[in-house]
């Protein structure tokens, strides 16, 4: 059996302080309920600059300029200890919000994004210098709009503004005057997801010298819904992103599972490739505006920078086994069953322990676990704790329970088999997959042999079930040995002979018991 491989991975970030202020749900709700609150009055002084976000160590880890373990060498709080500010990284880049407005415009097929005639050429020049976009795509930035017309649309509430501080640069118009699913808010949200997903795909292809035309299928895993009033989640973000990213031979699908979506999609992609249905499958997603500033009230209370100003995206290419790239072990898949239960121990048992036991592996046989990798500097001040560490402690506790390690070694287990969280709290984004780029490097360098990626999803948020969810898979160093078609045929022949022998023996046992 030839397992599918992961050929390449990309991670991108976009610093979006203005989108956070205008479109983050925490801020939207506060503006509606308590427009004069101290929180709203003071948040402005805790908003970071683009330069500060680039020099933020976890962001440098996310785009691949630092390893997750490098965070152990950066004094805390990380926001007070800037690192070398590189906008470009091994896996992707950190884009500025204003440049991103241009990318949103280039991803807009219905002339819903307007940029002022003053800013459009400035953005075009900046995006042109990246050498990522075609002339036809850049030409979409040639036509600017009169800023007075843009202001009028925003004032009429038929469009939402694109700002740089207090300055209006453009807008996103509603796509329908009465359809709530095509409102300016929904179109804005979806275009941000699309554009950030496209940026991740572009980096996946360009940085790894991959022709987008080889992609057969795209699985998109964000948490947004694309559709109109008759089919709110109709889709298809995957194909929409693939169109802009140049995947001319691909179709695709949107796969949803809250934060567990990416891990589910990786398992699906692996199955599609291993079965031979498709040779090259991209799993990807852009980020979300709703979660920007989600815990900002606590950050402001703690007098610290509002760190949830990053929209993120990722893309991963799953392909046929090339004998080199790390493999996805499709025979070791963990899943949280409907009957598994929602207590933390039950969740880890189902997702992590059960698949290992079924494969005669120990918890300690997996060198590195990648559960959700939320940056603890975002979650701890908000009272949500260090999520990766909590997962590592639970996995370690299961190893203690199974007698694999001593209780006194629990914290050592969390260090040896875990990494610090470094991903922004963008829901599906931190859910296991941001490690893949780093894992590919570590596996190919021989630093680790096995990695388990764990995705978990809060299904109860949608109010259709109170169930939790999760799925896991293992990425392993490629043995370099490929099973040929002849090997497979020989193996099948051997299995058939074995079945016949067993059937014959069982028949004889049955006959003897029956006295025949």
């Amino acid at each position, binding site marked *: 059996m030839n397992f599918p491989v992961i050929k390449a991975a990309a991670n991108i970030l976009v610093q979006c302080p203005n989108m956070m202020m205008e479109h983050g749900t925490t801020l939207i709700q506060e503006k509606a309920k308590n427009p004069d609150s101290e929180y709203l009055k003071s948040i402005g002084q805790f908003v970071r600059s683009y330069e500060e976000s680039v020099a933020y160590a976890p962001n440098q880890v996310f785009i691949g300029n630092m390893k997750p373990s490098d965070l152990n060498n950066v004094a805390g709080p990380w926001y007070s200890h800037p690192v070398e500010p590189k906008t470009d990284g091994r896996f992707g880049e950190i884009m500025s919000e204003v440049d991103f407005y241009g990318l949103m415009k280039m991803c807009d097929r219905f002339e819903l994004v307007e940029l002022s005639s003053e800013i459009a050429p400035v953005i075009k020049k900046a995006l042109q210098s990246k050498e990522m976009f075609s002339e036809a795509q850049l030409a979409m930035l040639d036509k600017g709009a009169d800023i007075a017309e843009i202001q009028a649309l925003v004032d009429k509430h038929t469009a939402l503004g694109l700002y740089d501080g207090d300055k209006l640069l453009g807008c996103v118009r509603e796509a329908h005057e009465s359809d709530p699913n095509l409102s300016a808010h929904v179109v804005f949200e979806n275009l941000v997801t699309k554009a950030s997903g496209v940026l991740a795909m572009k980096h996946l292809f360009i940085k790894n010298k991959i022709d987008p035309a080889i992609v057969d299928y795209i699985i998109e895993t964000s948490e947004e819904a694309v559709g109109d009033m008759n089919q709110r989640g109709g889709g298809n973000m995957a194909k929409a992103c693939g169109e802009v990213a140049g995947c001319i031979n691909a179709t695709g699908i949107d796969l949803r599972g809250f934060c567990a979506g990416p891990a589910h999609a990786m398992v699906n992609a692996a199955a599609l490739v291993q079965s031979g249905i498709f040779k090259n499958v991209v799993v990807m997603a852009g980020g979300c505006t709703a979660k920007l500033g989600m815990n900002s009230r606590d950050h402001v209370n703690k007098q610290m920078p509002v760190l949830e100003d990053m929209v993120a995206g990722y893309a991963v290419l799953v392909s046929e086994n090339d004998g080199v790239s790390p493999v996805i072990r499709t025979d070791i898949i963990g899943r949280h069953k409907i009957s598994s239960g*929602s207590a*933390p121990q039950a969740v880890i048992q189902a997702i992590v322990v059960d698949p290992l036991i079924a494969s005669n592996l120990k918890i300690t046989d997996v060198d590195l676990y990648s559960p959700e990798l939320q940056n603890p500097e975002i979650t701890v001040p908000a009272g*949500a704790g260090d999520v990766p560490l909590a997962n590592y402690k639970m996995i370690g506790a299961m190893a203690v329970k199974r007698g694999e390690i001593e209780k006194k070694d629990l914290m050592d287990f969390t260090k040896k088999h875990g990494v610090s969280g470094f991903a922004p709290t963008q829901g599906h984004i931190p859910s296991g997959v941001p490690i893949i780029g780093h894992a590919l490097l570590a596996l190919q360098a021989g630093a680790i042999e096995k990695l388990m990626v764990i995705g978990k999803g*809060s299904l109860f948020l949608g109010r259709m079930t*109170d169930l*939790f969810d999760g799925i896991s898979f293992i990425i392993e160093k490629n043995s370099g040995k490929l099973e040929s078609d002849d090997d497979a045929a020989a193996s099948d022949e051997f299995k058939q002979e074995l079945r016949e022998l067993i059937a014959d023996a069982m028949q004889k046992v049955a006959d003897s018991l029956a006295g025949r």
Partner: protein
Amino acid sequence: MDKSFFANKKICALGDRDGIPGPAIAECMKTVGGEVLFTSTECFV
């Protein structure tokens, strides 16, 4: 705390998705005689 404190008390169980989920808190409350009126699990990530 004395477990009897929860007996016949009306309970709202507010869980954390990355901590103890609401249904788990509710189950515990029921075993000590609490009357669970509302259960929810919130997500902060």
